């Protein structure tokens, strides 16, 4: 029996509702989810015995919220064979911000205002990859494996948004040439850095990504809230749904190599 523990913030919702869709195909696997919504996720502390919990001084209402979501206030990572940290900040968002107004030699030629040399982009990638490594207590595990799943790309629905915070992504969506190649180059670097610390990278399945370097809308529609289980509003472009979670878990479990096959393996959604 392989024991998978998914931890993280609101992005764990997709995994929680996605797992039942594919559980029957993985009878030798259990998937458990422990979710703590932001900003409280940042307060979580990992003890030397790998107990993940909020600090003792946490406000009672936050503890109560965590108990309501998870039925417990902490989780033992030592009980898992695989720990997947969902919604992990990988630095890919920084790369996207960089690409919003920049072309990159050999990777992106979209007529942007600015041009980055291949050498500069490589050094920027290396510096970012080193910056987004999990803290020391999370590295070099031997009895279990840690994977991080970066934030998914924003959903295609963001193109109708007027929010200033999404402006860069909308600019990219309007001129996506080479963006995924540049992001992939970053994730290759990031994966190599994580690998040196014994941490794996669970990339966003390619099948979920549209031509505009955004997550296909069908993987976002109906994304669940982790507290109530109800779907997010139409203005939410960040969270993903059960189909997305199932596809990611299928990829993690190594059931299928190609995203297309993974999609099929996940059943009819």
């Amino acid at each position, binding site marked *: 029996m392989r024991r998978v523990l998914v931890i993280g913030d609101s992005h764990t919702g997709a995994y929680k509702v996605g797992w039942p869709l594919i559980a029957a195909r993985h009878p030798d696997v259990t998937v458990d989810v422990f979710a703590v919504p932001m900003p409280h996720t940042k307060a979580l502390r990992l003890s030397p015995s790998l107990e993940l919990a909020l600090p003792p001084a946490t406000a009672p209402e936050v503890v109560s919220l965590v108990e309501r979501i998870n039925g417990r206030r902490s989780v033992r990572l030592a009980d898992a064979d695989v720990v997947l940290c969902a919604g992990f900040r990988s*630095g890919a968002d*920084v790369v996207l*911000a*960089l690409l919003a107004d920049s*072309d990159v*030699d050999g990777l992106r030629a979209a007529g*942007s*205002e*600015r*041009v980055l*040399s*291949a*050498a*500069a982009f490589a*050094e*920027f990638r290396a*510096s*970012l990859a080193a*910056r987004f490594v999990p803290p020391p207590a999370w590295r070099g595990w031997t009895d279990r494996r840690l994977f991080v799943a970066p934030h998914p790309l924003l959903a295609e629905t963001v193109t109708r948004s007027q929010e200033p915070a999404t402006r860069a992504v909308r600019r990219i969506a309007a001129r996506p040439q080479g963006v995924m190649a540049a992001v992939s180059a970053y994730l290759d670097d990031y994966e190599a850095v994580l690998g040196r610390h014994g941490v794996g990278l669970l990339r966003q399945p390619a099948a979920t990504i549209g031509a505009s370097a955004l997550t296909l809308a069908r993987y976002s529609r109906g994304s669940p809230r982790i507290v109530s289980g109800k779907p997010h509003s139409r203005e939410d472009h960040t969270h993903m749904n059960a189909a997305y979670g199932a596809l990611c878990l299928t990829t993690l479990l190594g059931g299928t190599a190609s995203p297309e096959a993974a999609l099929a393996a996940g059943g009819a959604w």
Partner: protein
Amino acid sequence: MTVPGSGRPASPYQDLPSRAYWRSGVTERSPLDPGDLFHPRFPVTREMRIATAGSCFAQHVGRALRGAGFDVIDTEPLPPAIPDAVANRFGYRLFSARYGNVYTARQLAQLLAEAHGEIAPAEPVWRRGDRFFDAQRPGVEPDGLETAADVRRHRDAHLGCVRRAFEAADLVVFTFGLTEAWVHRETGTVYPTAPGTIAGRFDPEVYAFRNYDAFAVLADFEEVRSRLKRANPALRFLVTVSPVPLTATASGNHVEVATCYSKSVLRAVCGLLVERYDDVDYFPSFELITSQSARGAYYEPNQRNVTATGVATAMRTFLAGHGIEAAAPAPARRGPARRAAARAAADEVCEEALLEAFAR
């Protein structure tokens, strides 16, 4: 008019403020007291959009202004998550666009003319081995680019950023650095570094040495001013002279003599500019750092690079002059913070310093 009771004529030096006398203004000042050197001509505020350019020392000016919350323009920005050391290595976050050090007023005038499509510099691409460099900013890509066409494409994009930087400015801060430069004999195109220093090949038939005099520097800066004022009549200028001595001189003089000439010319031009134009102010960073009162304390042991304390003192004086609170002075003790500040001061990107490698 006479001194009452003496019959002697009153002196115009009588009853001047203490800052007007050497004894009270300098001799009696404690060594690291910057003194009352700076009375701004017009206010510089955090509401102003500021474009910066100039020599290595100007990098400190831009950094300090940004650190003090001023709106320093950056038309080639990077996300904050990219560390300064990496960004600076490629010429980012040094000035308002990625033009690298602009050592001479001629270079600034040429850059703006090029950005507006009026001139095309000669020999725009230099080589080093199989790599290609922008001759007008050879330091911004430390390993060059793959092809000459890449250099031209990058420069075209950069020139758009240069235009946007200066068009957006309410205040241009320019630090005069050098009078010595290398030019293309046939066209007069000026370069920030001597060919052969970072890239390119020095050919005395093609390139010539120039040591601009005060008339030439003044004319060049006046050209810059006129051009920018045409686009924005409300634009103002803050000029400074870099206190960093020359790394090397091609003038034939001793480097100390050449430095004195160069800085004297630049300082004189600043004086003339302030004299002639109400929209130009001068900030005496040169005087602050080189002051006899400081007894050389603002220089690193090589007696050339300015220490972090020197930079901080200059910038505190600037902010205090404008009635803006500055950060507390760096503690005068050894420790991580001081070493970090020293590293920041030493981290300036200075192509001119590369000339030292050619010293025998």
